[in-house]
């Protein structure tokens, strides 16, 4: 398997086939990822969407997609992908459509569905070896309904259902680890702020038949509390502080595609976001800050 199609940033297609003027918030990190993914996948795709922010990309009678789209429900987008994929395969086998009419099946879902309600359908799709790409834009909360905490919310974050002085008491779980326990063909973490890494991973994913599971940390100005123009910078900080490890799962092995050798303190990432402001003001919440830093350090110790 080779990454050679995209050596440099300038190798990445910039045809801008994804339309503008969507109702997504300014600076949406999820939309940034969809833009980049779509450039690589192209328009011979059908996006099968679970309820979330991106459901509002296609509002009758307009769509930013040049290819196809099917909205399903919050819990069952992978099952929708199963139905579409199986139907296309049946039509191809029976010669009822030309091979040129075939489509790549892409599930588009937020973390609310991916980490929670949709997990059963996702697990089933992996187990059945469904040939599809699964993209989770992870904005670490139920963003579309006003950023309530989800199973993807990080420890200590203030959300609209964790407004107390300590923020969200739970811990973000690793959807990547849950996926690879089922041995998909490919799995990866990506972020819009690292477009070359992202493009290489999508390109690599397309070379496999079977479930290709992608999760993208998606900085969310509205839900996380930062200026939309800082979205890319926040994403970069997520990588540089080690909060969001960039990695992939191929042939039964996990490889980190970008190891931040000199990690910035996690504070650099946290203090830029309103959802963590209570950890710094009116006084520093040392124990929580230490705990968050220690968890990150422990992760990278295991990697290195």
């Amino acid at each position, binding site marked *: 398997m080779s990454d050679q199609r995209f050596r440099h940033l300038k190798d990445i297609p910039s045809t801008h086939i994804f339309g503008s003027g969507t109702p997504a918030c300014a600076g949406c990190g999820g939309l940034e990822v969809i833009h980049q993914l779509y450039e690589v996948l192209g328009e011979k795709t059908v996006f099968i969407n679970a309820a979330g922010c991106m459901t509002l990309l296609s509002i009758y009678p307009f769509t930013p997609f040049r290819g196809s789209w099917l909205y*399903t429900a919050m819990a*069952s987008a992978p*099952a*929708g992908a199963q139905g579409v994929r199986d*139907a296309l395969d*049946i039509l191809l086998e029976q010669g009822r459509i030309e091979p040129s009419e075939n*489509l790549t099946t892409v599930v588009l879902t937020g973390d609310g569905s991916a980490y929670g309600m949709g997990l059963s359908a996702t697990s*089933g799709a992996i187990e059945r070896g469904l040939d599809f790409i699964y993209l989770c834009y992870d904005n670490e909360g139920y963003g579309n309904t006003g950023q309530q905490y989800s199973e993807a919310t990080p420890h200590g974050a203030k959300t609209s259902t964790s407004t107390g002085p300590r923020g969200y008491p739970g811990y973000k779980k690793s959807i990547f680890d849950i996926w690879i326990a089922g041995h998909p063909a490919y799995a990866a973490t990506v972020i819009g702020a690292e477009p070359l890494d992202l493009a290489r991973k999508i390109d690599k994913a397309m070379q496999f038949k079977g479930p290709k599971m992608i999760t993208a940390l998606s900085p969310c100005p509205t839900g996380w509390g930062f200026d939309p123009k800082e979205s890319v910078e926040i994403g970069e900080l997520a990588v540089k502080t080690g909060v969001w490890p960039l990695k992939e799962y191929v042939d039964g092995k996990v490889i980190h595609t970008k190891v931040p050798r000199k990690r910035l303190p996690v504070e650099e990432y946290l203090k830029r976001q309103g959802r963590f402001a209570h950890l710094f003001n009116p006084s520093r919440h040392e124990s929580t800050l230490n705990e968050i830093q220690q968890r990150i350090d422990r992760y990278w110790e295991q990697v290195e």
Partner: protein
Amino acid sequence: MKRILLTGNGAAAWGARLACADYVPAFPITPQTEIIETLADWIDNGEMPGRLVTLDSEHSMITAAGAAAATGVRVFSATSSQGLLYGMEMLYTVAGWRAPFVLVNVSRGLASPITLEPDHNDILAARDCGFLQIHCATCQEVLDSVLIAYRLSEASSVRLPVIVNLDGFYLSFTREPVQIPDLKAAAAFVGAFDAEDIRFRASAPTSQAMAVLGGSPYSYFRYETHLAALQALDAYETIASEFEEKFGRNHPAVETYRCDDAEMLFFMIGCFATKAKVAVDRLREAGWKIGLVRPRLIRPYPAEAIRTILRGKHGVAVIDQNLSMGFGGVLHSELASALYGQPDMPHILASFIGGLGGRDISTEEFFEIATTLKRAIVSGETPAPRLLYTEDELKQIEKLQLIAHVERTGGERE
């Protein structure tokens, strides 16, 4: 054509096979499982072309069914009871996609308490979702209805999914002689699947099931679905006539039995209607002018056909194998709304609830229902809704009440 003994489940599977279903998303649930086991066996052993995939739930199963139909293949699926309700969100959703396919529901009572045995609360919970509903009374009808359902679902004027309903246990596991049409004759009747403009192709990108903003576009799509369901009334008549011409079996939207000179009628759906026929025969022998009306179509509701049959009759006993808590029988209230304010309709519309959770309705109970109805016609007073019990069952209930009393009071006498 061959004639063999088949269960209702077997007949449903044969319907899917004869209709040349391409795709079967599945999930096991009692008493439906025999349907998917039969289809899986045929497909695995090369007796039937097609693909069967077991999903992680009925919610996923109905999603996959709708998505495959929306991509352009012929889809069959089956479920029951809790499964139908687990998939309820998607029943509403895929009906709105206007994705034509056939879903068999094997009726079974709903929790709580949890039971395996049949009644109609599951299927009537799906009453408003946009699926059309055909209700069967015999195993032959199950097979025939699946074939008719594909034609109805795929008709250009309709384009809606259809549920074919049969009663759990009494029909699903009862063997009856069933005529199995020749594959060629059945295929000629059903025809090839035409996806029309609902499909996914690289050369013709399309967005399906998009969000709408505002009540106007929402109402537009909902009205369209409603009008399509209404158009299914005419489409059904045409398709059922063609079926009768080809196969010699008549399945009207509303079945009538000895209704012509009847003054009183039983009104019910499902396989217990065959027991009502026996009761009608016995009562006729005793000189009663009584008949049976059994709608096969529940959605769309064949209101005009029912009014025509009921015009000038004195009284109707509606027997509901369902219970809408705090109100009563669903079929009763629907019939009342279809008849109210119309000329020459029966003055007495008596409501009886029975056959819940596998409970039988005996011939004696049909006699009791008829007696109550006759008394009401004479007195001109509609009786209060009745929950049916036999004397033995009442003894059991009193025993349960006694136990409950002892548990609540610690055995103290009042």
